């Protein structure tokens, strides 16, 4: 067991192997099960005996597992499938089939939670147990969610064009709402987005990749050792991963040059301005606000409006920020926290402390609640 064995490389082959099986006539659900079984064999056997052609090995073993499963059902079905046997696909066909597995797993008929689960299993090649642990639900629950999702998409034709936007949304969810467990979901989302970007050749998918890279670059600075949050303004920027920043900026610039602006490209542009600044004070806030204006024109999203108000507060002063905030729906989850921040900046410590305490009560996770409580505590401190 001394050979280096890269599980991520193995798992990167999963969607294309599934694609080959489906192209040969297997239905998606059965193909996916067969590929999972082949993965288990690979994990067991490859460290000692790595194959020369990993993908060919997986296709052969998965196809055999698939035939075994069919045979154990009925002989009639086996004859039908055998009749469908075709020569292997060419490279273009292969890329299209791989892309199609992405599309199926993010199909609009699926709920977001189901699409995320199915993508992590059938595209990322994670086991049901790993997906369950990542989202803190019992394995039996996750198994049901995945098999229901497979049934839902099993009637979708493999040759119908899919929508990249739905795949991007699912990958963004995996990146953004990652929980715990052994699997690094953010890294996994980046790996899948890279794969999608190379298959799709589309600027908005590149924009999503850039956004993920730029956010991921800040991760080492975002939490302390005790898991408490460090806001952007207080982060030790020396901890940011400059390699990821550089890659993110390069990917973004190439995407923007193609002049098909989208939401993720614009968000990435804002993230790039932060990544480029030595401190909050030296951030080009005027340009940040300009990107937010463009993003708002494109999406008209209340969350963008809220973030824009905070940026206006940095660019033009707290009073302007509060004026911009007055236009934002006060029911938004982070409205109270943004108001607290801007009121402190405007010099009203007591009001800011009260708002931070209220914001803590509205927080959607414990780390955020603790952070906001500490902001209130800091302002309430009587020296």
């Amino acid at each position: 067991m001394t050979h280096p064995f890269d599980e991520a490389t193995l798992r990167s082959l999963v969607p294309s192997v599934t694609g080959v099986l489906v192209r040969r006539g297997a239905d998606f659900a059965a193909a996916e099960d067969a590929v999972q079984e082949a993965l288990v064999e690979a994990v067991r056997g490859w460290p000692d005996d790595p194959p020369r052609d990993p993908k060919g090995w997986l296709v052969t073993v998965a196809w055999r597992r698939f035939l075994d499963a069919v045979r154990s059902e009925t002989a009639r079905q086996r004859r039908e499938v055998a009749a469908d046997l075709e020569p292997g696909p060419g490279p273009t066909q292969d890329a299209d089939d791989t892309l199609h597995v992405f599309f199926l797993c993010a199909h609009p008929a699926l709920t977001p939670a189901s699409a995320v689960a199915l993508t992590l299993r059938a595209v990322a090649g994670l086991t049901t147990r790993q997906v369950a642990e990542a989202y803190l639900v019992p394995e039996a629950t996750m198994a049901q969610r995945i098999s229901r999702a497979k049934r839902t998409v099993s009637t979708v034709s493999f040759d119908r064009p899919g929508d990249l936007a739905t795949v991007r949304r699912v990958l963004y969810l995996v990146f953004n709402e990652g929980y715990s467990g052994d699997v690094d979901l953010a890294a996994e989302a980046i790996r899948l987005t890279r794969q999608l970007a190379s298959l799709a050749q589309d600027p908005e998918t590149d924009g999503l990749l850039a956004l993920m890279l730029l956010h991921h670059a800040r991760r080492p600075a975002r939490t302390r050792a005790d898991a408490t949050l460090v806001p952007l303004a207080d982060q030790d920027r020396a901890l940011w991963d400059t390699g990821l920043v550089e890659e993110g900026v390069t990917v973004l610039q190439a995407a923007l040059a193609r002049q098909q602006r989208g939401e993720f490209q614009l968000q990435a542009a804002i993230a790039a301005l932060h990544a480029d600044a030595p401190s909050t004070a030296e951030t080009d806030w005027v340009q940040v606000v300009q990107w937010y204006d463009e993003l708002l024109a494109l999406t008209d999203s209340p969350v963008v409006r809220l973030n824009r108000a905070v940026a206006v507060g940095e660019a033009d002063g707290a009073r302007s920020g509060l004026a911009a905030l007055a236009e934002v729906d006060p029911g938004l989850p982070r409205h109270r926290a943004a108001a607290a921040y801007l009121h402190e900046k405007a010099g009203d410590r007591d009001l800011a402390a009260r708002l931070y305490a209220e914001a803590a009560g509205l927080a959607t996770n414990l780390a955020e609640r603790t952070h906001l409580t500490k902001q209130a505590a800091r302002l309430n401190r009587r020296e």
Partner: protein
Amino acid sequence: MPKYLILKHYRGTPATVNDVPMDQWTPEEVDAHMQFMGEFGRRLEENGELVDAQALSPEGAFVRADDRGTGPVTDGPFAETKDLIAGWYVVDVDGWDRAVELAGELSLAPGKDGRPIHEWLEVRPFYGAPSATGD
């Protein structure tokens, strides 16, 4: 081994000895409290006694259905658990005494001025599965 629920309350218990809302502590006191809670959870896990630990947001609503299906989602005209329950530990331990001992440790989490809160905690036994030899 029997399972117990150790309930943390937002309100509804008698005042604690060190009864100051958290936003009136110093940030360092908040950190010390969170660190204590983190270590308590980790220790339960290391002991092999932790089943589940969850914290509840103070948000939420009582819901009831009328004849047409789901009725209005409203705050109940009575005390709701969101006013009371802040979170819980589910522990799988040797028995009642150990569950009470753990609740006692949790009660002494540090608060304002680093002094113990002496928080009230509620311990409730779970019904288990019927025993295989109990017939």
